[in-house]
């Protein structure tokens, strides 16, 4: 069964199910037994939903036995990042302050996936409240990279990416604020899509940075990415930042002639110093392969790129400090351990938040409080918002000349656990190439190229395709033809 799992994609699972090669229950049980053997070493999951998943898989088998038509995702075993709510299951966001919180409703994306009869295996580990690039910031445990257990899986959706890479889920949901889907996808050798801002509902996604957060798929193939993205995108009246736009079937059946007609931009600023030899070679390989499809390439410039990291690390903490104010250690928790009777409410807040938040949330909340404070607002927060406009304009201008852009995902392959843990700025630099386009609200996908020997292990390298707003069809389409080469 293990080899069956290794070759299983959403597409091949669906075909196998329809052709009665296996049942949904058999696969779900096989995934759980694989998780029990494997996850002790990897640590991808924070909690499992075995009983619920088995029941949901059985329902799909009953529907098939009755001769009902089933969709692509019926019975498919998915991992869900633990900052996305599933009614009745824990949702900790990997934070001690939410240690005992059980979700009281379904996120918008979960409602959509439940209507497709998908199966939820469990909740995947992340950097606390999705703040981080390595999953080392989890309040509960460190997830290991399946390719080399001494290395990080990337973050913040490290549990989701590791689960898919280690075949402990057919596909997964992550969330992407500045690279949190694409970076772990690249480090783990899987496909990750950060969608256009406003295309996927944020209802039931525990908010980190409301103006940037988007849920997206982590999958083994680009084709699966298109399948899962199509299922989770579209309107939701519970999210006032959702644009209520749906995508057509072209996502799943891209037209080769229109893909061949795309012009690919190579931004100068993304190919400078500081990129490892493996990443450089990987991205060059991807470029050569795409050239063989007949696409035109053009050099472009995004002159404000170098300001994106500072801009991002002002806007994010500002929104974090505001979004995190609700965690008083009382309302979302049964944890009374740190709130003895007869203490003042003020002291309970201080203690609960002091004990409940880990170092990175504390750093961001306090930095955010600072950049929003009287006397500093103009020189930091307001300034960053204006710089954000300049960064967006760079992309608007460049997209007049090209249809998609191709860049590295990260400057290096997966780094060692502990390597950057004590230096926040070097950790933030891992997101250099994934952040700027997010500030502009654009979609981007991370696609694996191949693996390189680093030390004694083979590590994956990915490349990133950036699309125009609402043009997931271009990057998913090009990606689908790329993976057939």
């Amino acid at each position, binding site marked *: 069964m293990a080899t069956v799992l290794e070759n299983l994609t959403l597409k091949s699972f669906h075909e196998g199910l329809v052709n009665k090669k296996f049942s949904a229950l058999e696969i779900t049980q096989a995934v759980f037994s694989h998780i029990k053997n494997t996850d002790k070493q990897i640590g991808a999951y924070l909690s499992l939903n075995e009983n619920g998943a088995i029941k949901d898989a059985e329902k799909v088998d009953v529907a098939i036995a009755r001769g009902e038509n089933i969709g692509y995702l019926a019975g498919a075993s998915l991992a869900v990042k633990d900052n996305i709510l599933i009614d009745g299951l824990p949702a900790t966001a990997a934070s001690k302050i939410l240690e005992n919180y059980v979700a*009281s409703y379904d996120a918008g994306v979960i409602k959509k996936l439940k209507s497709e009869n998908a199966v939820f295996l469990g909740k995947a580990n992340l950097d606390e409240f999705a703040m981080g690039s390595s999953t080392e910031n989890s309040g509960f445990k460190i997830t290991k990279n399946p390719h080399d257990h001494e290395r990080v899986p990337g973050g913040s959706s490290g549990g989701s990416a590791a689960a898919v890479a280690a075949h402990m889920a057919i596909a997964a949901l992550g969330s992407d604020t500045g690279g949190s889907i694409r970076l772990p996808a690249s480090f783990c050798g899987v496909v990750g899509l950060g969608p256009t801002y406003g295309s996927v509902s944020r209802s039931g996604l525990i908010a980190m940075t409301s103006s940037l957060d988007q849920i997206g798929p982590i999958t083994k193939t680009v084709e699966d990415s298109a399948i899962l993205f199509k299922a989770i995108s579209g309107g939701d009246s519970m999210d006032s*930042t959702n*644009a209520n736009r749906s995508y057509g079937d072209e996502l799943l059946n891209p037209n080769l002639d229109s893909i061949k007609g795309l012009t690919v931009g190579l931004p100068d600023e993304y190919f400078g110093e500081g990129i490892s030899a493996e990443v450089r070679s990987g991205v060059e390989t991807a470029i050569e392969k795409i050239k063989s499809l007949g696409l035109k390439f053009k050099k472009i410039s995004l002159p404000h790129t170098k300001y994106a990291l*500072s801009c991002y690390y002002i806007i994010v903490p500002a929104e974090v400090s505001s979004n995190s104010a609700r965690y008083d250690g009382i309302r979302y*928790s049964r944890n009374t351990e740190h709130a003895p009777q007869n203490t*003042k409410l003020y002291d309970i807040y201080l203690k609960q*938040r002091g004990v409940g938040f880990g170092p990175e949330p504390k*750093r961001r909340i*306090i930095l955010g409080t600072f950049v929003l404070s009287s006397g500093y607002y103009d020189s930091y927060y307001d300034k960053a918002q204006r710089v954000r406009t*300049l960064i967006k304009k760079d992309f608007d201008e460049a997209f007049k000349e090209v249809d998609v852009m191709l860049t590295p995902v990260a400057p290096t392959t997966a780094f060692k656990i502990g390597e950057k843990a004590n230096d926040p700025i070097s950790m933030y630099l891992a997101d250099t190439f994934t952040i700027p386009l997010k500030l502009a609200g654009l979609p981007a996908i991370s696609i694996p190229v191949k693996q390189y020997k680093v030390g004694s292990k083979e590590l994956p390298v990915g490349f990133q395709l950036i699309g125009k707003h609402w043009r997931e069809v271009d990057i998913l389409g090009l990606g689908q033809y790329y993976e057939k080469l």
Partner: protein
Amino acid sequence: MSSPINKKTLEHLAELARIKLNTQEEEKLLQDLQKILEHFEELKTLDTAGVEPMSGGGGLKNIFRDDAAAENTNQRAGIEQFPDKQDDYLKVPPVFE
């Protein structure tokens, strides 16, 4: 150049943010924040006069749903997670002394 954050401002910010820090945390955080703010200095070299600030992610405006009444509550699930309650109200210590 002296950093806009020192020990005293950090203590004030931690109080505003309602986060209790121990001495060790305070020292590390002060170092980190000073380094991060130094990194932000590069933004000051950019002329942003006349540039509109960008707020929100996608330039979306006024997304409304129909103003229709609907039964849509899961209040019970929230109440059940209160650490202490009285008549379905969250019970907390006095706010004022």
